[in-house]
């Protein structure tokens, strides 16, 4: 595998993931657009894996310092993002009595 075919594969993945994202996010209730944004923010902070490798491999002093700051920034997004999304979603309650989210979630769509 050379780097060009790697890039072509990566492009395929990007385009297909973009389509999935478009279809999935189109169906998100407007009720939940704020939690959606904080959730995608947390998921986006998966960039931390690139930063972790930079820090862990110690290839140069600059890359270690940059990587370290990047790890801190991304981790704060992961922790803060999941935390606040959870707090928001906990607040959404239905007016219907005896609403039990556990058995409602079983019904599809």
């Amino acid at each position, binding site marked *: 595998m050379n780097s060009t075919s790697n890039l072509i594969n990566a492009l395929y993945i990007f385009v297909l993931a973009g389509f999935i994202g478009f279809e999935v996010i189109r*169906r998100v209730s407007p009720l939940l657009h704020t939690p959606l*944004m*904080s959730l995608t*923010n947390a998921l986006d902070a998966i*960039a931390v894996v690139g930063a972790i490798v930079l820090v862990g491999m110690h290839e140069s002093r600059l890359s270690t310092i940059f990587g370290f700051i*990047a790890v801190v920034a991304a981790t704060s997004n992961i*922790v803060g993002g999941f935390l606040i999304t959870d707090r928001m979603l906990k607040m959404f309650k239905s007016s219907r009595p005896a609403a039990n989210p556990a058995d409602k979630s079983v019904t599809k769509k």
Partner: protein
Amino acid sequence: MTAELGSLQIVIELLYLIASVLFIFSLKWMSSPTTARHGIWAGEAGMVLAIGGTLLNRGMDYRLIATGLVLGTIIGVPLGRVAMTAVPQRTALSHAFGALCVTLVGSAEFYLRTPEISRFMMSVLSLEVILGGLTVTGSLMAAGKLQEILPQRPLTYKGQNFVNFLLLAAALGLAVFLVLHPDAKSLFPYMVMIALVFGVLLIIPIGGADMPTVISLLNGYAGLSAAAMGFVLNNKLLIIAGALDGSSGLILSIIMSKAMNRSFTNVLFGAFGQVQTSAAAGEEARPIRSATPEEAAAILSAANRVIIVPGYGMAVAQAQHKVRELYDALTKRGVDVRFAIHPVAGRMPGHMNVLLAEADIPYDRLIEMDEINGDFPQTDVALVIGANDVTNPAARTDTTSPIYGMPILDVDKAHTVMVIKRSMNPGFAGIDNPLYYLPNTLMLFGDAKAFVGSIVRELGGGHG
């Protein structure tokens, strides 16, 4: 870099694949409030697997990594505990953090790899740091405006768009040069710096009213720059997460700009709030009718169907909890109370729903604009609290109005309209609202929290 993947590498890749699937499910479950919390668990599980898998790489300095993770957690926890009114600026700040991570990793990779870097790779890397860089400062500016550290009014000067365009062209020009001559390392910091400056200048002319669109747009940029980072690192999980985040930001920006009847270019280059100030004058001395809390309470308790239209003014007055008491008192009397939510109510997409949910108002009572607009003619009372432009009927009829064409809530079609407002001063955008002069409109002058509180007392449902 080797052609054959070792067995450890295969394990890591498989963990990344599982994480990608979990991320997609995480977003899929956000489609409904009943399943949304599963989405968080899926996202967290994916995150743990991905980070765990990355740590399996051999020869890592775990102590430094752990320090970074702990430090990030210490910063992240308070950011996850901010008040619900502060969520927009928190979100903007986290866009900045995410983009900072991407920009730093991209810069480090540049210095590690050059000059042995393919042209395509260098192009993607440039895209990564330019998008990342402008998102860092742009998001910080947006957060500053939302936190009201920076002036909310748009700042414009002559030739602004020209200067911005020139900067962007300079950054792209440097990128092209670096693609052709990757050994010109000394130019790289200039490219990053121009991107940072561009981010600041991009947000300066954008006013507070356009923040929902801008936050969504910056969300999209952050996602795209993360996807570009995935290309550079050949990390498929990152590409997928970035593409998901990018499409989310794009969809939300489209929804927001549609809700304000504005195009992207209009938001980015238009400086809302400049033209309208003159339109407010010359509309003096038209008769209005006002009412006291007692009268308002009497009308509300005689109604069968009430729709409450909350705007950001309600949140500013901290009136959500009083509104909840009003909802309780009216529901107890058998009145059907619902809330009409305009897409741009609040400071970011969906913000108003969160503010009302925090006040324990059930989410099935929060109805989107398109769904509820047809119900206004059969509604006895529409109660507008702290909303202005989104109820302005001029948007439907007056072609000279700056908000003409913007989709609005048709409150004027209700039998009686009641508007809680401090005074007759025009709203943030400075546009006069003909709604206030209609024969079926009653103005309720006062602070939203105090006024709703007095109505609740009249209805006998208040707590103290």
